[in-house]
């Protein structure tokens, strides 16, 4: 009897995102009940959530084994696995179990990777457009809907979705974990990029639900690293709550798809996230920029996704990737790649060239670090440690850049840059599952902060933030608005997330209408809009009407869980504008001062 199937059926998720589409499930087998031994049975009494770090290009799984964090290995004894799903065979297989002979097969068009760059993004997003030069097909119609994604199977483009690909991959991870831990796995803590919008988070949760997993926490990657750091510091010094030994760490995390920065203040196992910053820049951009530098006609050759073009691009990609790795330790690298059809790139590439080609990326990294320092109101001298993690952390330019901003010679060396995030996620999994450790190893707490501001459209076409970025969560803030027309009886609340002044550049989270405002001159009725984020990071928008001088509520409060939008939301803002114009607008009454 397969326990995981039963688990799926009793999936209680009421959230819209969790309407689980059990997909490709029967193709996978999991450890059966009979394989469970007595001990595991008892230890499974409190299910400990496992930590999963799904990176743009690599992924890993870790769990709390009762005394420490342990990384799981796949059947090929790898702790770090490639994040991809191949559609080459009848049953799609992911990088956890499949053994593709070499990188060329990953790049044959039959394999989809970089899902994390696609999930929850609409086809007008520049990040999606950057993905179009990968071997598989990403088609954009540029109208604000989910991009069309397809894999090449027997000379046909077979369509799928980023969520589906991620779910297939998660199922493989789950099967691997269940086989090794000999217990059903349901609860997980996933690490996510700082810059993910709440809509993207809801897509990640959906993919998890499709894989029969319940997301206990979604943790921004650098905050997972901060948790690991907090645990390590607690180990080294058995300090009490005394803040004399508070440690402030700057965590710089850059992988293939995203760059994140966090500043945490840690003492006595409590780490407070003081600021977060992040952007969708990563090794993938470094790689693509270098490929275009080596082969200027890259986009022309590849635009048609022809079979020959895919082959030559995959050769170039592999060679360029190797070159970047070599340039981490050497200053020069010889590039010699046969593109087929007589095309060939042969040259000597030096590190300076690589750095110049990617100057913009490095500049962006620098501004993320500076912004984070600024937001955290932390002086460089106050930093105890500078931690560099992620696949790109070995790039000399990035190391120098972070070291020079933070004015120090050395970076923290106490953690494996590729495993830090997943270890932190596993720690959070144990802590959030309520596990306690007799030696105090889990006496930890991360006080999270919101990476992006959340607010509503008001004062014409402006974004009025209600919860500012880097606000400690759980959080609850409100702001009072009023009507802009006489006898206005309805108002539209359109909720956005982001920090751009142009409202369209922020992420739409949802919208609803408040009705039943008593007909009064403009500026009299007060519409109180309250945003509530609980410890599980669930956002609720509450709105109610107050008439000055009247104790009674004139209409029931509206309470809306966000994000409430679905795919294709790129349309929504425009459609609302077309349908209502400014007839249902609001303006702010008073701006609450931030303490």
């Amino acid at each position, binding site marked *: 009897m397969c326990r995981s199937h039963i688990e799926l059926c009793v999936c209680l998720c009421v959230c819209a995102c969790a309407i689980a589409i059990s997909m490709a499930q029967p193709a996978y087998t999991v450890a059966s009940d009979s394989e469970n031994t007595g001990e595991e049975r008892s230890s499974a009494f409190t299910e400990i959530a496992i930590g999963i770090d799904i990176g743009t290009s690599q992924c890993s799984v870790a769990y709390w084994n009762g005394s420490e964090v342990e990384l799981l290995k796949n059947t090929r004894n790898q702790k770090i696995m490639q994040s991809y799903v191949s559609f080459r065979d009848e049953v799609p297989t992911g990088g956890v179990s499949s053994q593709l002979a070499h990188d060329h097969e990953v790049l044959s068009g039959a394999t989809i990777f970089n899902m994390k760059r696609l999930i929850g993004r609409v086809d007008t997003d520049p990040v999606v457009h950057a993905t179009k030069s990968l071997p598989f097909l990403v088609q954009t119609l540029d109208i604000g809907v989910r991009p069309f994604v397809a894999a090449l199977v027997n000379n046909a483009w077979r369509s799928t979705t980023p969520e589906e690909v991620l779910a297939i991959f998660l199922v493989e991870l789950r099967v691997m974990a269940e086989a090794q831990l000999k217990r059903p796995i349901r609860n997980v803590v996933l690490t996510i990029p700082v810059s993910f919008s709440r809509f993207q988070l809801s897509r990640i949760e959906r993919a998890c639900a499709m894989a029969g997993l319940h997301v206990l926490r979604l943790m921004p990657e650098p905050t997972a690293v901060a948790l690991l750091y907090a645990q390590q510091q607690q180990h080294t010094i058995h300090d009490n709550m005394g803040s004399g030994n508070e440690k402030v760490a700057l965590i710089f995390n850059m992988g293939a798809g995203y760059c994140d920065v966090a500043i945490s203040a840690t*003492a006595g196992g409590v780490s*407070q996230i003081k600021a977060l910053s992040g952007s969708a820049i990563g090794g993938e951009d470094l790689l693509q920029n270098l490929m275009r530098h080596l082969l200027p006609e890259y986009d022309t050759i590849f635009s048609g996704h022809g079979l020959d073009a895919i082959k030559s691009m995959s050769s170039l990609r592999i060679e360029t990737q190797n070159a970047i790795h070599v340039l981490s330790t050497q200053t020069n690298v010889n590039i010699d790649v046969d593109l087929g059809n007589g095309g060939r790139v042969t040259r000597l590439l030096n590190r300076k060239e690589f750095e110049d080609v990617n100057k913009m990326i490095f500049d962006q990294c620098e501004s993320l670090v500076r912004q984070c320092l600024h937001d955290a109101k932390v002086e460089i001298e106050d930093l105890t440690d500078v931690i560099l993690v992620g696949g790109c952390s070995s790039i000399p330019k990035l190391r120098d850049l972070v070291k020079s901003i933070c004015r120090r010679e050395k970076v923290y060396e106490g953690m494996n840059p590729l495993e830090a995030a997943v270890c932190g996620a596993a720690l959070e999994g144990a802590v959030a599952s309520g596990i306690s450790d007799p030696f105090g190893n889990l006496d930890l707490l991360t006080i999270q902060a919101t990476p992006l501001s959340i607010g509503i459209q008001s004062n014409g076409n402006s974004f009025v933030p209600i919860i500012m970025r880097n606000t400690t969560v*759980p959080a609850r803030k*409100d702001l009072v608005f009023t009507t802009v027309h006489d006898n206005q009886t309805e108002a539209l609340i359109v909720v956005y997330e982001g920090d751009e002044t142009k409202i369209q550049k922020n992420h739409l989270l949802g919208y609803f209408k408040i009705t039943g405002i008593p007909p009064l001159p403009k500026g009299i009725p007060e519409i109180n809009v309250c945003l509530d984020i*609980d410890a599980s990071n669930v956002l609720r928008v509450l709105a109610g009407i107050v008439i000055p001088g009247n104790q009674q509520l004139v209409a029931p409060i509206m309470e809306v869980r966000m994000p409430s939008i679905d795919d294709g939301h790129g349309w929504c803002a425009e459609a609302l504008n077309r349908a209502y114009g400014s007839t249902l607008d609001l303006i702010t009454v008073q701006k609450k001062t931030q303490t």
Partner: protein
Amino acid sequence: MMQTLSFPGIPATTPLNRRFRCRAAVQSLSPATLNSSSLYEVLRVNRNASPLEIKAAYRSLAKLYHPDSAAASSSSSSSSSDGCDFIQIHNAYETLSDPSARALYDLSLGFGIGIGIGIGMTEANHNSNSPFSTPFRWETDQCW
């Protein structure tokens, strides 16, 4: 005096089913969460506590009252696993850890106005638009 709308605190749930809770009676006011009289009392420190003491107090209280912490989730007391309490603690810390905000707050205490705290106790939190509106009114309004 004008009043503002109050939203009740969201009831506490255990960590595992937090996401699935359903809530009714959203209109009911819950003044019960307001039981502290000053920010110093919220943090359980003296009026003359040093910044280090305030920070330490905040940390120890966070460990007790943050919904994520093991202490809060294992405790059966509903008040300790309710995020509202932690918000109150954090807001007190925000004010008291900022020297200028703390000075202003101390000043207000000195005048005996209590920046809405006293008012919040007696008038069921309808003090958002009170003439005493200052950043500090958050400390009471957060947790209706």
